[in-house]
């Protein structure tokens, strides 16, 4: 089976000489289409740095990241931006919704960046808001929504460009237990499919049950990859 993501001997360090600090070192793993892959570990273990390198945001100092068999760090900077736009959907920890835009406009952003017509983008965004259960809130600004609703708007925004890779950064960190579980149920049942790989970085052990595999990190290194309960 072709891996969705293949990371090989990835390393990232900051500073030079005596100040050189490894954020990630010698990390190799593969994540596959159709699976929910958790990256877990304590703060400072290198989870976010790793996620940034495999999503085309942070250039590694060494190693290779192949997404759907394409070595992304051999691409030009504009091509990497195109890659992120077309292949990756992000759900940020703080959502990063734009307060001055309506919910529908927020969701439409990736399509607008893809040069879609404005009205067509909004129509498509409304369709995705319907999928995440927010059909009646399309005209509201994000600040008028609850935390769980904002999370779903962020998911709709990540989904709207139909990415192969979906990345969630601490998706339940600012949600209560019930809402977090509802979101994860939704991710598992409605978002995951055979052509999509979902990567989730989290501290929250309450949602480990949704993982197909869990990769544990400490001090920038992989300390183990195990099958999750969801497998």
């Amino acid at each position, binding site marked *: 089976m072709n891996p969705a993501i293949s990371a090989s001997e990835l390393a990232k360090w900051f500073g030079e000489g005596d100040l050189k600090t490894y954020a990630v070192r010698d990390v190799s793993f593969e994540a596959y289409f159709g699976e929910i892959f958790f990256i877990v570990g304590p703060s400072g273990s290198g989870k976010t740095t790793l996620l940034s390198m495999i999503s085309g945001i942070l250039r590694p100092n060494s190693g290779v990241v192949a997404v759907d068999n394409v070595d992304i760090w051999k691409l030009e900077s504009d091509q990497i931006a195109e890659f992120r736009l077309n292949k990756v959907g992000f759900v940020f920890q703080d959502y990063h919704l734009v307060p001055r835009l309506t919910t529908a406009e927020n969701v439409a952003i990736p399509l607008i960046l893809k040069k879609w017509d404005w009205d067509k983008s909004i129509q498509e965004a409304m369709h995705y808001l319907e999928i995440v259960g927010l059909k009646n809130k399309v005209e509201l600004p994000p600040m008028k929504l609850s935390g769980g609703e904002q999370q779903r708007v962020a998911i709709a925004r990540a989904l709207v460009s139909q990415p192969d890779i979906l990345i969630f*950064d601490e998706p339940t960190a600012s949600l209560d237990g019930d809402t977090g579980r509802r979101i994860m149920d939704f991710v598992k049942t409605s978002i995951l499919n055979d052509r999509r790989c979902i990567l989730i970085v989290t501290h929250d052990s309450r949602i480990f049950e949704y993982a197909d595999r869990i990769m544990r990190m400490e001090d920038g290194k992989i300390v183990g990859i195990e099958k999750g309960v969801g497998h």
Partner: protein
Amino acid sequence: MKGILKIAFKLLVNDKGKYAALLVGITFAVFLMVQMTSIFFGILLKSSSTVINVGAQVWVMDPAVNNVANSIPLPDYVLDAVRSINGVKYAVPLYSGGALVKLRSGVFQSVTVMGLDDNSLFGRPELIEGKIEDIYAENAFVVVQDEEIRKLGNPHLGTDFELNDHRGVIVGIAKVAASGLFGIPTLYTTYSRAIQYIPSTRFTISYILVEPKSNDAILHIQEQVRLLGYQALTQEELMQKIANYYKYQTGLGTNILIMTAVSFLVGLSISGQTFYTFILENLEKFGALKAIGAKGRELVYMILFQATFTSLVGYGLGIGLCTLVIAIAKLRIPDYSANITYSTLAFAFVMVLIIAGISSYIGIRKVLKIEPFDIFRG
């Protein structure tokens, strides 16, 4: 691209407080810059009013003359000498001087008296009441109907007054293209009556007005006049000389320049600072857009659009406000000298573009520096 700019537009105008602050900064900068420069141009226009109203193509004068109100009398032989220059179609004397008139009410009022060549009346104003030939009648004067005429008690045909123990009678009411700078009424009469009624120096010709046979002859006339020890200037050159005098020898130009620079700096600092704060507050959003897949140049376009849009709206509001203030001022103060010219508008426009450029440069630098990685790190 259109969609990106629409996002930029909504980001800008939906933040009503910041948008209003940006507009206020630019509007007032434009208002002050245009107000200052239009007052300056108004003063320059009024300072050259005599040159505009008389309308001669070439003016001969003493080289030391630097504005039309302070003429240095020319000897009579200069008139003959100028008339004999090849290329001169005709040349006539002009008297321009100040006098005090005593009105029927007993009030004294300063006036400018223009003495036109008796034979040709060259440089005469357009009459709206009376006949120009009546200027040859006894004690005849033509008064200019401008904002200053009320200072002579709003005279009509037949109104008389006293000028240096001579009787004067209004025989015509005229209009002119531009009113004077110093806020005093203007009377026209013949050259001979002017020098007869007004105490004069030994020489009495203020200027010699020359009509060249062709435009090609002007250079030759100027050279020949220079050889006589005098100066011949075209209408445009004389207006420029007067403008230079007010700009560089009176402090007026420097003061206006300083005020304009201060207005520019105030506008720049208000809008630059507000725009910078606006960018800082939206920095994470720009970072998120970058993480999602926006290219650096698309974010640059967004910021340039926001800065340009704000600047153009502020420019329009500033010009509108300035026009309104000038219109209201002219209703209350007829002498108010302010003149919005195309060059004033162009100058303010360039300054606004500079404000937009500097403001967006600050924002662009900040946005290009943000790494999407920082968004992940929180």
